[in-house]
């Protein structure tokens, strides 16, 4: 059983990586994120057209370790923009980077948003208020729902399509990817998949060490379901069983082609707890003609394969 999708646009947002062009540059040259890159070389060095370069400026070098704040969505009405939390800004900014190339799809894509502890910053505010017997702010409560980012997205872009917000914990990128690929294939409709993590404050951060934001956005369609349009890359998604048993005997184990959940060395070590960093690593496949990545999902693995493009 294999699913297939075409990636028609993508976005990425994290300290030091502000566009797909920068990500491809990093992946292709395998640099560490703490070494500066030449900004003038980030566009076109990979040989890809400007069409796929994101519009978000990134910060590199020493700046990458400073606090990183995604800009507010200009699509959100002013009153909602004021209410939006940091994670909402992050998810929307990344999504909008991808949609910059297909603004016509913003209102009609189905949404799959995946995060481990996405609204953790707001959860902390709520839990801290309760623990200290302080009154709870209604805005904090409204923003504490896991689907706050997708909700704000729908308001910003007048998107009334079906929308999923899910968590598979530390495997949220893999769970979201599987879900998004299934969604695209089952419905024949374009799907916007956003995988994100937003920094957690103490004391929550002592439980889950997310200190940097990271996000990737994948605008995907089932192959041949859209009018002919430039495609960034074609992918296959399979569900691999790591331990299939018949009675007590293990009967079929598909060998993994590389270490599972591989984090290339150009991802900072400080992102180890960010599930969405695996999404950024996966987009590194755009720097290769073809390739495969395996991601854990419970007792299985989600295998993502970049397929050789005809053009």
């Amino acid at each position: 059983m294999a699913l297939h999708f075409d990636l028609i646009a993508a976005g990425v947002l994290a300290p030091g990586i502000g566009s797909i062009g920068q990500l491809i540059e990093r992946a292709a040259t395998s640099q560490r994120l703490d070494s500066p890159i030449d900004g003038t070389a980030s566009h076109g060095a990979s040989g890809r057209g400007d069409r796929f370069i994101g519009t978000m400026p990134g910060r590199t070098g020493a700046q990458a370790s400073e606090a990183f704040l995604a800009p507010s969505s200009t699509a959100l009405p002013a009153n909602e923009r004021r209410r939006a939390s940091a994670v909402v800004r992050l998810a929307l900014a990344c999504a909008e980077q991808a949609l910059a190339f297909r603004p016509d799809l913003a209102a009609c894509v189905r949404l799959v948003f995946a995060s481990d502890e996405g609204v953790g910053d707001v959860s902390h505010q709520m839990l801290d208020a309760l623990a200290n017997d302080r009154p709870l702010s209604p805005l904090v409560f409204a923003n504490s729902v896991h689907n706050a980012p997708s909700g704000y997205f729908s308001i910003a872009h007048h998107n009334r399509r079906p929308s999923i917000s899910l968590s598979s914990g530390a495997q949220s990128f893999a769970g979201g990817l599987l879900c998004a690929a299934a969604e695209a294939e089952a419905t024949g409709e374009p799907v916007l998949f956003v995988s994100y993590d937003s920094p957690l404050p103490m004391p929550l951060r002592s439980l889950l060490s997310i200190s940097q934001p990271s996000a990737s956005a994948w605008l995907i369609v089932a192959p041949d379901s859209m009018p002919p349009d430039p495609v960034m890359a074609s992918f296959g998604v399979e569900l691999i069983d790591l331990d299939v048993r018949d009675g007590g005997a293990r009967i079929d184990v598909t060998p993994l082609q590389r270490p599972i959940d591989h984090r290339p060395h150009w991802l900072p070590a400080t992102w180890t707890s960010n599930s969405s960093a695996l999404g950024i690593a996966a987009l590194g496949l755009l720097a290769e003609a073809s390739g495969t990545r395996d991601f854990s999902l419970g007792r299985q693995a989600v295998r993502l394969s970049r397929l050789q493009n005809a053009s």
Partner: protein
Amino acid sequence: MLGVDAYSTLHAAGPDNAASWRAMQGGSSGLKPNDLPWCDLPCWIGEVPELREPTPAGMLDDQDWLALLAGWDCRQHRLAWLALARNGFDQAVKASIRAHGAHRVGVIVGSTTSGIRSTEQAYRKHVARGRWPDRFDWRRTHSLESLGRFAARVLGCTGPTITLSTACSSSAKVFLLAQRWIDVGLIDVAVVGGVDSLCESSLRGFASLDLLSPQACQPFDEARAGISIGEAAGFVLLGREKRATALMGGGEASDAWHMSTPHPDGRGATQAMRAALDDAGLGAAQIGYVNAHGTATRANDRSEAAAMRCVFGAQGVAVSSTKGVTGHTLGAAGVTEAIVAIQTLEHQALPPSTGTSSVDDSLELDLLTCTRSASTEFVMSNSFGFGGSNCSLIFGRVS
């Protein structure tokens, strides 16, 4: 279309499937004045009596529970455990595993609270002592995905497992995700469901929005004053095999309006209901009963009634809200009320709108005020949540 193979429901008025249906039919409310020792808000709640601490004897003597306990113990998972162990549900899942293989059974569940009650207690201890309690296992209790992992572990399923969290539509959307996963061949069988448990966050959160009624909730009543929060667990086993009751289809839509207020005309709700009818290949006139979201807030009931008038027109449809029996079970509302819909088909009877004494005539609804026997082929169950997330499910009796 998916066959409903088995189900298990657990809430304040229903320790099991049969007791739940008796409460629904009889209009017997499980709500009571809030007497939680850890939250003194003046409101009514739907508490599952077996969860009242200290834990009643029996659960922690259960060797199976003890074997699974390490790290997972919290109010949320005790509630999940009770539902998974009852009504023959566990056995039905094990039969599916034997037939298809454990890796072909997916688990798709919904929750808004997860095990946050334990985190609330841990935060208080952290404030007092500057460190976490020794036995606080955040990943296995608080983390949203813990419910799905816990259920899969209890049942022995090794297929893809995810947890949705889209506020009050969470455990309704899981049904449609299961349909799509089975359609594309990811899995053959799905365990869908949802659990939400009582916690300070929900109670004080809804209170901060002035949505918490001081009395037992009164859906669609002219005097309605907000919600009563309940806790519940529900699970349904779905597969391709033909069964007496089937998921005919469903629809989802977003309001794209406001994070905590529904669209005044119920446009997202209308869209979801119409999409459900399209998906099931049915006309509005073929629906014999609607289990409404019916939370008893002034805004929801008004916009939901507007949406129903749009979809069902002047002819209308028999409708009731059963939140007067269970309370608003939030992330578990979708599955809890889907099970009510399934039971109306099994029993060929429609439950009344418990808690409603004086129907708000301005809503123009054909509200059931007492139970009604009715030859019914298709029923609808609606769930509309924060962030404008709307889901409508249609179940049918298959001859």
